[in-house]
Protein backbone atom coordinates (compact mmCIF):
# COMPACT_ATOMS: atom_id res chain seq x y z
CA UNK A 1 0.00 0.00 0.00
CA UNK A 2 1.28 3.48 -0.87
CA UNK A 3 0.87 6.29 1.67
CA UNK A 4 -2.20 8.47 1.01
CA UNK A 5 -1.69 11.56 -1.20
CA UNK A 6 -0.42 14.51 0.81
CA UNK A 7 -2.68 17.43 1.74
CA UNK A 8 -0.67 19.67 -0.63
CA UNK A 9 -1.14 17.28 -3.50
CA UNK A 10 -4.86 16.95 -2.82
CA UNK A 11 -5.18 20.73 -2.75
CA UNK A 12 -3.30 20.93 -6.09
CA UNK A 13 -5.71 18.40 -7.58
CA UNK A 14 -8.73 20.40 -6.39
CA UNK A 15 -7.25 23.56 -7.95
CA UNK A 16 -6.79 21.84 -11.31
CA UNK A 17 -10.29 20.37 -11.18
CA UNK A 18 -11.78 23.82 -10.61
CA UNK A 19 -10.42 25.00 -14.01
CA UNK A 20 -12.89 22.86 -15.97
CA UNK A 21 -16.69 22.73 -16.17
CA UNK A 22 -16.41 19.01 -15.38
CA UNK A 23 -13.88 17.84 -12.81
CA UNK A 24 -13.01 14.71 -14.80
CA UNK A 25 -11.48 16.90 -17.53
CA UNK A 26 -8.56 17.60 -15.19
CA UNK A 27 -7.53 13.92 -15.25
CA UNK A 28 -4.41 14.26 -17.45
CA UNK A 29 -2.98 17.31 -15.64
CA UNK A 30 -3.81 15.65 -12.31
CA UNK A 31 -1.99 12.46 -13.27
CA UNK A 32 1.07 14.51 -14.29
CA UNK A 33 0.97 16.17 -10.86
CA UNK A 34 0.71 12.84 -9.05
CA UNK A 35 3.46 11.24 -11.13
CA UNK A 36 5.80 14.20 -10.58
CA UNK A 37 5.24 13.80 -6.83
CA UNK A 38 5.29 9.99 -6.53
CA UNK A 39 7.43 8.97 -9.50
CA UNK A 40 4.69 6.65 -10.78
CA UNK A 41 0.93 6.03 -10.67
CA UNK A 42 0.02 2.79 -8.90
CA UNK A 43 -3.41 1.29 -8.07
CA UNK A 44 -3.67 3.26 -4.80
CA UNK A 45 -2.94 6.55 -6.54
CA UNK A 46 -5.48 5.67 -9.23
CA UNK A 47 -8.15 4.99 -6.60
CA UNK A 48 -7.53 8.27 -4.77
CA UNK A 49 -7.57 10.31 -7.97
CA UNK A 50 -10.83 8.61 -9.01
CA UNK A 51 -12.54 9.64 -5.76
CA UNK A 52 -11.26 13.24 -5.99
CA UNK A 53 -12.49 13.64 -9.57
CA UNK A 54 -15.74 11.76 -9.07
CA UNK A 55 -15.08 9.03 -11.66
CA UNK A 56 -14.59 5.27 -11.52
CA UNK A 57 -11.14 3.74 -10.92
CA UNK A 58 -11.40 1.97 -14.28
CA UNK A 59 -11.68 5.34 -16.06
CA UNK A 60 -8.39 6.36 -14.46
CA UNK A 61 -6.76 3.01 -15.35
CA UNK A 62 -7.84 3.41 -18.99
CA UNK A 63 -6.09 6.76 -19.22
CA UNK A 64 -2.95 5.73 -17.32
CA UNK A 65 -2.42 2.77 -19.65
CA UNK A 66 -3.32 4.64 -22.88
CA UNK A 67 -0.78 7.48 -22.68
CA UNK A 68 2.92 6.62 -22.98
CA UNK A 69 4.10 9.30 -20.52
CA UNK A 70 2.33 7.73 -17.54
CA UNK A 71 4.23 5.05 -15.60
CA UNK A 72 2.69 2.36 -13.42
CA UNK A 73 6.04 1.45 -11.85
CA UNK A 74 8.89 3.58 -10.51
CA UNK A 75 11.68 4.53 -12.94
CA UNK A 76 15.25 5.62 -12.23
CA UNK A 77 15.91 9.10 -10.83
CA UNK A 78 16.44 10.36 -14.38
CA UNK A 79 14.53 9.23 -17.42
CA UNK A 80 16.59 9.33 -20.63
CA UNK A 81 14.41 9.19 -23.76
CA UNK A 82 16.16 8.93 -27.11
CA UNK A 83 14.21 9.93 -30.24
CA UNK A 84 13.94 6.96 -32.59
CA UNK A 85 12.01 8.53 -35.44
CA UNK A 86 13.22 9.29 -38.95
CA UNK A 87 14.77 12.77 -38.74
CA UNK A 88 16.93 11.65 -35.81
CA UNK A 89 17.93 8.28 -37.24
CA UNK A 90 18.94 9.99 -40.51
CA UNK A 91 21.42 11.94 -38.38
CA UNK A 92 22.83 9.06 -36.34
CA UNK A 93 20.20 8.50 -33.64
CA UNK A 94 20.89 4.75 -33.57
CA UNK A 95 24.56 5.37 -32.77
CA UNK A 96 23.52 7.63 -29.89
CA UNK A 97 21.24 4.92 -28.52
CA UNK A 98 23.97 2.28 -28.86
CA UNK A 99 26.44 4.52 -27.06
CA UNK A 100 24.01 5.04 -24.17
CA UNK A 101 23.29 1.30 -23.91
CA UNK A 102 27.01 0.55 -23.76
CA UNK A 103 27.84 3.42 -21.44
CA UNK A 104 25.01 2.72 -18.97
CA UNK A 105 25.31 -1.05 -19.45
CA UNK A 106 21.54 -1.45 -19.77
CA UNK A 107 19.04 -2.16 -22.53
CA UNK A 108 16.07 -0.06 -23.63
CA UNK A 109 13.40 -0.09 -20.90
CA UNK A 110 15.93 -0.92 -18.16
CA UNK A 111 17.27 0.98 -15.14
CA UNK A 112 20.91 1.16 -14.00
CA UNK A 113 21.70 -0.85 -10.86
CA UNK A 114 22.33 2.33 -8.85
CA UNK A 115 18.82 3.53 -9.74
CA UNK A 116 20.17 6.66 -11.42
CA UNK A 117 19.02 6.27 -15.04
CA UNK A 118 16.21 4.61 -16.95
CA UNK A 119 16.73 4.42 -20.72
CA UNK A 120 13.87 4.42 -23.24
CA UNK A 121 13.24 5.36 -26.84
CA UNK A 122 10.55 7.86 -27.79
CA UNK A 123 8.76 8.85 -30.98
CA UNK A 124 9.47 12.28 -32.54
CA UNK A 125 10.09 14.94 -29.86
CA UNK A 126 9.47 17.83 -32.28
CA UNK A 127 13.08 19.05 -32.25
CA UNK A 128 14.13 17.67 -35.65
CA UNK A 129 16.38 20.63 -36.52
CA UNK A 130 18.64 19.50 -33.64
CA UNK A 131 18.75 15.83 -34.67
CA UNK A 132 19.83 13.57 -33.14
CA UNK A 133 18.11 14.57 -29.91
CA UNK A 134 17.02 13.17 -26.58
CA UNK A 135 15.06 14.27 -23.56
CA UNK A 136 16.31 13.77 -20.01
CA UNK A 137 13.48 14.34 -17.54
CA UNK A 138 11.90 17.48 -19.09
CA UNK A 139 15.03 18.92 -20.72
CA UNK A 140 15.78 18.64 -24.43
CA UNK A 141 19.33 18.12 -25.74
CA UNK A 142 20.14 18.20 -29.45
CA UNK A 143 22.96 17.88 -31.98
CA UNK A 144 24.19 15.03 -29.80
CA UNK A 145 27.73 13.69 -29.83
CA UNK A 146 29.37 11.19 -27.46
CA UNK A 147 31.11 14.07 -25.65
CA UNK A 148 27.80 15.89 -25.19
CA UNK A 149 26.18 12.79 -23.77
CA UNK A 150 29.01 12.40 -21.27
CA UNK A 151 28.42 15.96 -20.08
CA UNK A 152 24.65 15.48 -19.86
CA UNK A 153 24.92 12.25 -17.87
CA UNK A 154 27.64 13.73 -15.67
CA UNK A 155 25.40 16.67 -14.79
CA UNK A 156 22.55 14.44 -13.59
CA UNK A 157 23.05 13.37 -9.97
Amino acid at each position, binding site marked *: MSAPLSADLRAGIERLAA*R*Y*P*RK*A*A*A*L*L*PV*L*HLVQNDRGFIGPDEEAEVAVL*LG*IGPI*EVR*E*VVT*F*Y*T*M*FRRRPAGRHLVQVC*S*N*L*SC*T*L*MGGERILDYLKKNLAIGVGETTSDGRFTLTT*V*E*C*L*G*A*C*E*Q*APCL*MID*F*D*YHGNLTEEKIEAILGGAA
Partner: protein
Amino acid sequence: MDMNRSLEAYREAGGYQAARKALAAMTPAAVLDEVKKAGLRGRGGAGFPAGLKWSFVPAKTDKPKYLCVNADEGEPGTFKDRFILSHNPHALIEGSLIAAYAVGIHQAYVYIRGEYEMIARRLDQAVTEAYEKGFLGANILESGFSLDFGVHRGAGAYICGEETALLESLEGKRGHPRLKPPFPASVGLFGAPTVINNVETLANVPAIILHGADWFTAAGLPRDGGTRLFGVSGPVVRPGIYELPVGTSLREIIFSHAGGMLPGKRLKAVIPGGLSAPILRADEIDLKMDCDSLVAAGSMLGSGGIIVIDEATPILDVLFRVAKFYAHESCGQCTPCRLGTAWILKIVRRMASGNGVRGDVDELARLAAGIKGMTLCPMGDAAALPILGIIRKFKAELEG
Protein backbone atom coordinates in the same frame (compact mmCIF):
# COMPACT_ATOMS: atom_id res chain seq x y z
CA MET B 1 6.13 36.84 -38.23
CA ASP B 2 8.37 38.74 -35.83
CA MET B 3 9.54 36.69 -32.87
CA ASN B 4 9.13 38.37 -29.48
CA ARG B 5 8.94 36.27 -26.37
CA SER B 6 7.96 38.80 -23.70
CA LEU B 7 4.75 40.80 -23.70
CA GLU B 8 6.74 44.02 -23.58
CA ALA B 9 8.80 43.15 -26.67
CA TYR B 10 5.70 41.88 -28.47
CA ARG B 11 3.86 45.14 -27.82
CA GLU B 12 6.83 47.25 -28.90
CA ALA B 13 6.72 45.39 -32.22
CA GLY B 14 3.03 46.27 -32.64
CA GLY B 15 1.58 43.34 -30.76
CA TYR B 16 -2.04 43.44 -29.54
CA GLN B 17 -2.86 46.34 -31.90
CA ALA B 18 -4.87 43.92 -34.02
CA ALA B 19 -6.88 42.79 -30.98
CA ARG B 20 -7.46 46.44 -30.06
CA LYS B 21 -8.65 47.19 -33.59
CA ALA B 22 -10.96 44.16 -33.70
CA LEU B 23 -12.51 44.70 -30.28
CA ALA B 24 -12.88 48.48 -30.55
CA ALA B 25 -13.68 49.08 -34.20
CA MET B 26 -14.94 45.87 -35.82
CA THR B 27 -18.02 43.72 -35.35
CA PRO B 28 -17.46 39.97 -34.88
CA ALA B 29 -19.00 39.47 -38.33
CA ALA B 30 -16.50 41.89 -39.88
CA VAL B 31 -13.59 40.02 -38.28
CA LEU B 32 -14.95 36.72 -39.57
CA ASP B 33 -15.37 38.18 -43.08
CA GLU B 34 -11.80 39.46 -43.14
CA VAL B 35 -10.35 36.07 -42.18
CA LYS B 36 -12.62 34.35 -44.72
CA LYS B 37 -11.52 36.80 -47.40
CA ALA B 38 -7.87 36.07 -46.55
CA GLY B 39 -8.58 32.40 -47.25
CA LEU B 40 -6.27 31.44 -44.36
CA ARG B 41 -5.85 27.68 -44.68
CA GLY B 42 -5.20 25.53 -41.63
CA ARG B 43 -1.52 25.00 -40.89
CA GLY B 44 -2.01 21.79 -38.90
CA GLY B 45 -2.23 19.32 -41.76
CA ALA B 46 -5.65 19.28 -43.42
CA GLY B 47 -5.43 22.78 -44.91
CA PHE B 48 -9.10 23.60 -44.26
CA PRO B 49 -9.92 27.35 -44.48
CA ALA B 50 -10.04 28.74 -40.92
CA GLY B 51 -12.70 31.40 -41.56
CA LEU B 52 -15.03 28.82 -43.07
CA LYS B 53 -14.48 26.57 -40.05
CA TRP B 54 -15.40 29.44 -37.71
CA SER B 55 -18.54 30.17 -39.71
CA PHE B 56 -19.88 26.63 -39.07
CA VAL B 57 -20.37 27.40 -35.37
CA PRO B 58 -24.06 28.18 -34.83
CA ALA B 59 -24.65 31.83 -33.91
CA LYS B 60 -27.53 30.99 -31.62
CA THR B 61 -26.96 28.31 -28.99
CA ASP B 62 -27.80 28.00 -25.30
CA LYS B 63 -24.48 26.25 -24.63
CA PRO B 64 -21.09 27.84 -23.96
CA LYS B 65 -18.76 27.71 -26.99
CA TYR B 66 -15.13 26.69 -26.84
CA LEU B 67 -11.88 27.35 -28.68
CA CYS B 68 -9.32 24.55 -28.59
CA VAL B 69 -5.82 25.34 -29.77
CA ASN B 70 -4.14 22.27 -31.20
CA ALA B 71 -0.55 22.39 -29.95
CA ASP B 72 -0.13 18.61 -29.93
CA GLU B 73 2.50 18.74 -32.72
CA GLY B 74 3.22 15.03 -32.93
CA GLU B 75 3.68 14.59 -36.67
CA PRO B 76 7.28 13.40 -37.08
CA GLY B 77 9.44 15.96 -38.84
CA THR B 78 7.32 18.86 -37.51
CA PHE B 79 8.65 21.45 -35.05
CA LYS B 80 7.17 24.78 -36.16
CA ASP B 81 4.59 25.14 -33.38
CA ARG B 82 7.31 24.53 -30.80
CA PHE B 83 9.10 27.47 -32.43
CA ILE B 84 6.06 29.79 -32.15
CA LEU B 85 5.22 28.68 -28.60
CA SER B 86 8.83 29.21 -27.50
CA HIS B 87 9.59 32.46 -29.26
CA ASN B 88 6.29 34.17 -29.96
CA PRO B 89 3.60 32.95 -27.54
CA HIS B 90 1.67 36.23 -27.58
CA ALA B 91 0.96 35.90 -31.31
CA LEU B 92 -0.94 32.74 -30.40
CA ILE B 93 -2.73 34.40 -27.48
CA GLU B 94 -3.68 37.44 -29.58
CA GLY B 95 -4.81 35.27 -32.49
CA SER B 96 -6.91 33.19 -30.11
CA LEU B 97 -8.46 36.34 -28.63
CA ILE B 98 -9.46 37.60 -32.09
CA ALA B 99 -10.84 34.20 -33.11
CA ALA B 100 -12.82 33.97 -29.87
CA TYR B 101 -14.25 37.46 -30.44
CA ALA B 102 -15.29 36.60 -34.01
CA VAL B 103 -17.14 33.45 -32.93
CA GLY B 104 -18.43 34.60 -29.52
CA ILE B 105 -16.30 32.28 -27.40
CA HIS B 106 -15.36 32.96 -23.78
CA GLN B 107 -13.22 29.94 -22.91
CA ALA B 108 -10.11 28.71 -24.76
CA TYR B 109 -7.89 25.72 -23.98
CA VAL B 110 -4.47 25.08 -25.47
CA TYR B 111 -3.86 21.34 -25.77
CA ILE B 112 -0.06 21.06 -25.74
CA ARG B 113 1.82 17.79 -26.12
CA GLY B 114 3.12 16.39 -22.84
CA GLU B 115 6.77 16.35 -23.90
CA TYR B 116 6.64 20.16 -24.32
CA GLU B 117 6.67 20.59 -20.52
CA MET B 118 9.20 23.41 -20.46
CA ILE B 119 7.40 25.20 -23.28
CA ALA B 120 4.05 24.78 -21.50
CA ARG B 121 5.56 26.48 -18.44
CA ARG B 122 6.74 29.39 -20.60
CA LEU B 123 3.32 29.61 -22.21
CA ASP B 124 1.76 29.69 -18.74
CA GLN B 125 3.96 32.70 -17.95
CA ALA B 126 2.88 34.45 -21.15
CA VAL B 127 -0.78 33.78 -20.27
CA THR B 128 -0.25 35.22 -16.78
CA GLU B 129 1.35 38.34 -18.33
CA ALA B 130 -1.59 38.71 -20.70
CA TYR B 131 -4.07 38.46 -17.81
CA GLU B 132 -2.11 41.05 -15.80
CA LYS B 133 -2.13 43.54 -18.66
CA GLY B 134 -5.82 43.05 -19.44
CA PHE B 135 -5.48 41.11 -22.72
CA LEU B 136 -7.23 38.10 -21.18
CA GLY B 137 -9.88 37.80 -18.50
CA ALA B 138 -12.98 39.97 -18.02
CA ASN B 139 -13.73 43.15 -20.01
CA ILE B 140 -10.66 42.95 -22.26
CA LEU B 141 -9.42 46.42 -23.33
CA GLU B 142 -12.63 47.92 -21.91
CA SER B 143 -14.62 46.26 -24.69
CA GLY B 144 -16.94 44.26 -22.47
CA PHE B 145 -15.63 41.08 -24.14
CA SER B 146 -14.14 38.42 -21.90
CA LEU B 147 -11.99 35.35 -22.54
CA ASP B 148 -10.45 32.80 -20.21
CA PHE B 149 -7.46 30.86 -21.43
CA GLY B 150 -6.11 27.60 -20.01
CA VAL B 151 -3.04 25.52 -20.87
CA HIS B 152 -3.71 21.76 -20.84
CA ARG B 153 -0.96 19.16 -21.19
CA GLY B 154 -1.30 15.93 -23.11
CA ALA B 155 0.66 12.82 -22.16
CA GLY B 156 2.27 11.26 -25.20
CA ALA B 157 -0.23 10.13 -27.82
CA TYR B 158 0.07 11.12 -31.50
CA ILE B 159 -3.62 10.40 -32.04
CA CYS B 160 -4.56 13.39 -29.84
CA GLY B 161 -3.51 15.70 -32.69
CA GLU B 162 -6.64 14.42 -34.46
CA GLU B 163 -9.26 16.97 -33.50
CA THR B 164 -11.93 14.72 -32.00
CA ALA B 165 -9.34 12.60 -30.13
CA LEU B 166 -8.02 15.90 -28.78
CA LEU B 167 -11.51 16.70 -27.46
CA GLU B 168 -11.83 13.29 -25.80
CA SER B 169 -8.40 13.72 -24.22
CA LEU B 170 -9.27 17.22 -23.02
CA GLU B 171 -12.35 15.74 -21.35
CA GLY B 172 -10.07 13.38 -19.41
CA LYS B 173 -10.44 10.24 -21.50
CA ARG B 174 -8.41 8.01 -23.81
CA GLY B 175 -7.75 9.70 -27.15
CA HIS B 176 -10.24 7.74 -29.22
CA PRO B 177 -11.49 9.73 -32.22
CA ARG B 178 -15.23 10.34 -32.52
CA LEU B 179 -17.47 9.44 -35.42
CA LYS B 180 -18.21 12.49 -37.59
CA PRO B 181 -20.79 13.96 -38.10
CA PRO B 182 -21.64 15.63 -35.83
CA PHE B 183 -18.66 17.89 -36.40
CA PRO B 184 -17.03 19.74 -33.48
CA ALA B 185 -18.45 23.06 -34.72
CA SER B 186 -21.87 21.84 -33.53
CA VAL B 187 -21.02 19.10 -30.99
CA GLY B 188 -17.47 19.45 -29.66
CA LEU B 189 -15.90 19.88 -26.23
CA PHE B 190 -18.35 18.88 -23.44
CA GLY B 191 -20.96 18.48 -26.18
CA ALA B 192 -20.85 22.20 -27.03
CA PRO B 193 -19.96 24.05 -30.27
CA THR B 194 -16.17 24.13 -30.60
CA VAL B 195 -13.54 25.63 -32.89
CA ILE B 196 -10.24 23.74 -33.14
CA ASN B 197 -7.31 25.49 -34.81
CA ASN B 198 -3.59 24.81 -35.06
CA VAL B 199 -1.10 27.12 -33.32
CA GLU B 200 0.40 28.50 -36.55
CA THR B 201 -3.06 29.12 -38.02
CA LEU B 202 -4.08 31.31 -35.07
CA ALA B 203 -0.69 33.06 -34.95
CA ASN B 204 -1.42 34.32 -38.49
CA VAL B 205 -4.69 35.98 -37.50
CA PRO B 206 -3.40 39.21 -35.87
CA ALA B 207 -1.55 40.30 -39.03
CA ILE B 208 -4.62 39.60 -41.18
CA ILE B 209 -6.76 41.85 -38.97
CA LEU B 210 -4.12 44.57 -38.65
CA HIS B 211 -3.10 44.79 -42.33
CA GLY B 212 -6.16 43.30 -44.06
CA ALA B 213 -6.87 40.27 -46.19
CA ASP B 214 -5.37 41.86 -49.32
CA TRP B 215 -2.04 42.35 -47.59
CA PHE B 216 -2.10 38.71 -46.49
CA THR B 217 -2.90 37.30 -49.92
CA ALA B 218 -0.23 39.45 -51.57
CA ALA B 219 2.18 36.74 -50.41
CA GLY B 220 1.58 33.18 -51.47
CA LEU B 221 -0.95 31.98 -54.03
CA PRO B 222 -4.52 33.13 -54.79
CA ARG B 223 -6.19 30.06 -53.24
CA ASP B 224 -3.55 29.50 -50.57
CA GLY B 225 -2.21 32.79 -49.30
CA GLY B 226 0.32 34.08 -46.82
CA THR B 227 3.51 32.54 -45.58
CA ARG B 228 4.18 29.22 -43.88
CA LEU B 229 6.77 28.06 -41.41
CA PHE B 230 8.53 25.26 -43.28
CA GLY B 231 10.67 23.00 -41.11
CA VAL B 232 13.63 21.28 -42.73
CA SER B 233 15.38 18.32 -41.10
CA GLY B 234 17.79 15.59 -42.18
CA PRO B 235 21.33 15.88 -43.60
CA VAL B 236 21.20 19.46 -44.90
CA VAL B 237 23.63 22.29 -44.15
CA ARG B 238 21.14 24.48 -42.23
CA PRO B 239 18.25 22.48 -40.77
CA GLY B 240 15.63 24.75 -39.20
CA ILE B 241 12.45 26.78 -39.64
CA TYR B 242 12.01 29.01 -42.70
CA GLU B 243 9.09 31.40 -43.06
CA LEU B 244 8.43 31.63 -46.80
CA PRO B 245 5.49 32.45 -49.06
CA VAL B 246 3.13 29.56 -49.69
CA GLY B 247 4.08 28.16 -53.09
CA THR B 248 7.85 28.50 -52.68
CA SER B 249 9.53 25.65 -54.55
CA LEU B 250 10.64 22.62 -52.59
CA ARG B 251 14.00 22.66 -54.37
CA GLU B 252 14.56 26.28 -53.35
CA ILE B 253 13.73 25.52 -49.70
CA ILE B 254 16.15 22.60 -49.53
CA PHE B 255 18.98 23.86 -51.72
CA SER B 256 18.85 27.59 -51.13
CA HIS B 257 17.35 28.30 -47.70
CA ALA B 258 18.53 25.13 -45.93
CA GLY B 259 21.88 25.31 -47.74
CA GLY B 260 21.61 22.04 -49.66
CA MET B 261 22.97 18.65 -48.70
CA LEU B 262 25.80 18.20 -46.19
CA PRO B 263 29.19 17.61 -47.86
CA GLY B 264 29.42 14.10 -49.25
CA LYS B 265 25.63 13.52 -49.14
CA ARG B 266 23.41 13.20 -52.21
CA LEU B 267 19.65 13.69 -52.25
CA LYS B 268 17.62 10.49 -52.56
CA ALA B 269 14.09 11.45 -51.52
CA VAL B 270 12.00 13.98 -49.61
CA ILE B 271 9.01 13.59 -47.31
CA PRO B 272 7.42 17.01 -47.86
CA GLY B 273 4.84 17.51 -45.08
CA GLY B 274 5.48 15.39 -42.01
CA LEU B 275 5.86 11.61 -41.91
CA SER B 276 2.31 10.95 -43.23
CA ALA B 277 3.00 12.75 -46.50
CA PRO B 278 3.83 10.31 -49.33
CA ILE B 279 7.50 10.39 -50.32
CA LEU B 280 8.88 12.21 -53.38
CA ARG B 281 11.94 11.10 -55.37
CA ALA B 282 14.89 13.46 -55.83
CA ASP B 283 13.71 14.24 -59.38
CA GLU B 284 10.26 15.35 -58.16
CA ILE B 285 11.16 18.39 -56.05
CA ASP B 286 10.58 21.13 -58.64
CA LEU B 287 7.24 21.64 -57.02
CA LYS B 288 5.34 24.52 -55.44
CA MET B 289 4.79 24.01 -51.72
CA ASP B 290 1.05 24.65 -51.38
CA CYS B 291 -1.87 22.39 -50.49
CA ASP B 292 -3.20 21.89 -54.04
CA SER B 293 0.17 21.39 -55.80
CA LEU B 294 1.20 18.69 -53.34
CA VAL B 295 -2.10 16.85 -53.77
CA ALA B 296 -1.63 17.01 -57.54
CA ALA B 297 1.83 15.47 -57.06
CA GLY B 298 0.31 12.57 -55.11
CA SER B 299 1.47 13.79 -51.70
CA MET B 300 0.35 16.46 -49.25
CA LEU B 301 1.63 19.68 -47.71
CA GLY B 302 0.49 18.51 -44.27
CA SER B 303 2.38 20.29 -41.53
CA GLY B 304 5.09 21.64 -43.83
CA GLY B 305 7.71 19.50 -42.07
CA ILE B 306 10.24 18.57 -44.77
CA ILE B 307 12.38 15.48 -44.10
CA VAL B 308 15.37 15.20 -46.43
CA ILE B 309 16.73 11.69 -47.09
CA ASP B 310 20.20 11.00 -48.51
CA GLU B 311 21.41 8.31 -50.95
CA ALA B 312 23.26 6.36 -48.24
CA THR B 313 19.99 5.64 -46.39
CA PRO B 314 18.40 2.36 -47.48
CA ILE B 315 14.70 2.88 -48.25
CA LEU B 316 13.94 -0.10 -46.00
CA ASP B 317 15.20 1.97 -43.04
CA VAL B 318 12.73 4.71 -43.94
CA LEU B 319 9.92 2.16 -44.30
CA PHE B 320 10.82 0.68 -40.90
CA ARG B 321 10.63 4.07 -39.14
CA VAL B 322 7.26 4.78 -40.76
CA ALA B 323 5.83 1.33 -39.95
CA LYS B 324 7.11 1.40 -36.36
CA PHE B 325 5.61 4.82 -35.72
CA TYR B 326 2.08 4.06 -36.90
CA ALA B 327 2.00 0.64 -35.21
CA HIS B 328 2.98 2.35 -31.94
CA GLU B 329 0.53 5.23 -32.32
CA SER B 330 -2.61 3.45 -33.56
CA CYS B 331 -5.18 4.10 -30.82
CA GLY B 332 -6.64 0.62 -31.24
CA GLN B 333 -10.22 1.64 -31.85
CA CYS B 334 -10.63 0.58 -35.51
CA THR B 335 -9.63 -2.97 -36.45
CA PRO B 336 -8.10 -2.21 -39.88
CA CYS B 337 -5.67 0.31 -38.36
CA ARG B 338 -4.92 -1.63 -35.15
CA LEU B 339 -4.23 -4.95 -36.88
CA GLY B 340 -3.01 -3.56 -40.21
CA THR B 341 -0.26 -1.40 -38.74
CA ALA B 342 0.86 -4.27 -36.47
CA TRP B 343 1.05 -6.77 -39.36
CA ILE B 344 2.86 -4.26 -41.56
CA LEU B 345 5.49 -3.72 -38.86
CA LYS B 346 5.91 -7.47 -38.41
CA ILE B 347 6.66 -7.94 -42.10
CA VAL B 348 8.96 -4.91 -42.28
CA ARG B 349 10.90 -6.17 -39.25
CA ARG B 350 11.30 -9.54 -40.95
CA MET B 351 12.58 -7.85 -44.11
CA ALA B 352 14.97 -5.67 -42.06
CA SER B 353 16.42 -8.73 -40.33
CA GLY B 354 17.28 -10.21 -43.73
CA ASN B 355 14.53 -12.85 -43.65
CA GLY B 356 12.13 -11.33 -46.16
CA VAL B 357 10.32 -13.72 -48.44
CA ARG B 358 9.07 -13.37 -51.99
CA GLY B 359 5.78 -11.47 -52.05
CA ASP B 360 6.44 -9.44 -48.87
CA VAL B 361 6.24 -6.09 -50.67
CA ASP B 362 2.95 -6.99 -52.37
CA GLU B 363 1.61 -8.16 -49.03
CA LEU B 364 2.54 -4.82 -47.46
CA ALA B 365 0.71 -2.99 -50.24
CA ARG B 366 -2.35 -5.20 -49.75
CA LEU B 367 -2.39 -4.56 -45.99
CA ALA B 368 -1.93 -0.80 -46.40
CA ALA B 369 -4.73 -0.67 -48.97
CA GLY B 370 -6.92 -2.47 -46.44
CA ILE B 371 -6.45 0.36 -43.92
CA LYS B 372 -6.93 3.24 -46.36
CA GLY B 373 -10.42 4.73 -46.08
CA MET B 374 -11.53 2.06 -43.61
CA THR B 375 -11.14 3.91 -40.31
CA LEU B 376 -13.06 6.48 -38.26
CA CYS B 377 -10.32 9.08 -38.38
CA PRO B 378 -7.64 10.24 -40.82
CA MET B 379 -4.92 8.26 -39.01
CA GLY B 380 -5.72 5.19 -41.10
CA ASP B 381 -4.84 7.10 -44.25
CA ALA B 382 -1.91 8.76 -42.49
CA ALA B 383 -0.46 5.28 -41.92
CA ALA B 384 -1.39 3.72 -45.25
CA LEU B 385 -0.48 6.49 -47.71
CA PRO B 386 3.22 6.90 -46.83
CA ILE B 387 3.69 3.11 -46.95
CA LEU B 388 1.95 2.87 -50.33
CA GLY B 389 4.05 5.84 -51.50
CA ILE B 390 7.34 4.19 -50.54
CA ILE B 391 6.31 0.98 -52.31
CA ARG B 392 5.20 2.86 -55.43
CA LYS B 393 8.38 4.91 -55.70
CA PHE B 394 11.00 2.40 -54.49
CA LYS B 395 9.63 -1.05 -55.21
CA ALA B 396 12.72 -2.20 -57.08
CA GLU B 397 15.02 -1.28 -54.19
CA LEU B 398 12.75 -3.00 -51.64
CA GLU B 399 12.66 -6.18 -53.71
CA GLY B 400 16.33 -6.05 -54.65
